[in-house]
């Protein structure tokens, strides 16, 4: 069964460093998403992406964040200058239709020291 895959599973970085989280969505899906979950808190929407552009973003998704689909298979989330409060589990998801079922990856845990 096709799955959304995410790398790395865990990344530790120093405050102020750039981080790129990678996702490979399910191959025939057209809609892509990033969510995050700070430890002990709810899963929060960051951004949705369709047709090579951002379709919606939350207040969390400020200028420090960017997304890209560089090669037709990967979908990346970049944090330019990480802050302590960026420490969280970041989930990638994709869907074939909208509205439709979101298929989530296993998450990338980011720890900012």
């Amino acid at each position, binding site marked *: 069964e096709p799955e959304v895959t995410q790398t790395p599973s865990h990344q530790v970085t120093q405050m102020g460093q750039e981080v790129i989280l990678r996702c490979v969505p399910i191959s025939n899906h057209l809609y892509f998403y990033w969510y995050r979950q700070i430890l002990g808190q709810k*899963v929060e929407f960051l951004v949705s992406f369709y047709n090579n552009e951002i*379709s919606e973003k939350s207040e969390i998704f400020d200028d420090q964040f960017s997304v890209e689909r560089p090669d037709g298979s990967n979908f990346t989330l970049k944090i330019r200058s990480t802050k302590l409060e960026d420490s969280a589990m970041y989930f990638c998801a994709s869907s074939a239709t909208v509205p439709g079922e*979101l298929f989530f990856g296993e998450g990338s845990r980011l720890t900012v020291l």
Partner: protein
Amino acid sequence: AQRVTQPEKLLSVFKGAPVELKCNYSYSGSPELFWYVQYSRQRLQLLLRHISRESIKGFTADLNKGETSFHLKKPFAQEEDSAMYYCALSGHKGYSTLTFGKGTMLLVSP
């Protein structure tokens, strides 16, 4: 603004007991409601959505617009039901952006 409230962080029941995980929402239009589940060491996955009106793994959920609720129910809990359950709302017509509740951990003891 849209909001999803799951009042219980933890629900602990014995095997065979009925289960109800509560979910209330706030949204001015006609929302789509979902239940997602995360079993231990597994990814978030869709359990059911209100528009499909189906029962998955014995779970059902009815959208009550008057009470703005979408409680998840199962008449006889099983140990394998132990997991984190998230209620989610999509209020957008164009996209599947979800607003999640904080989640309820269901523990089913033998």
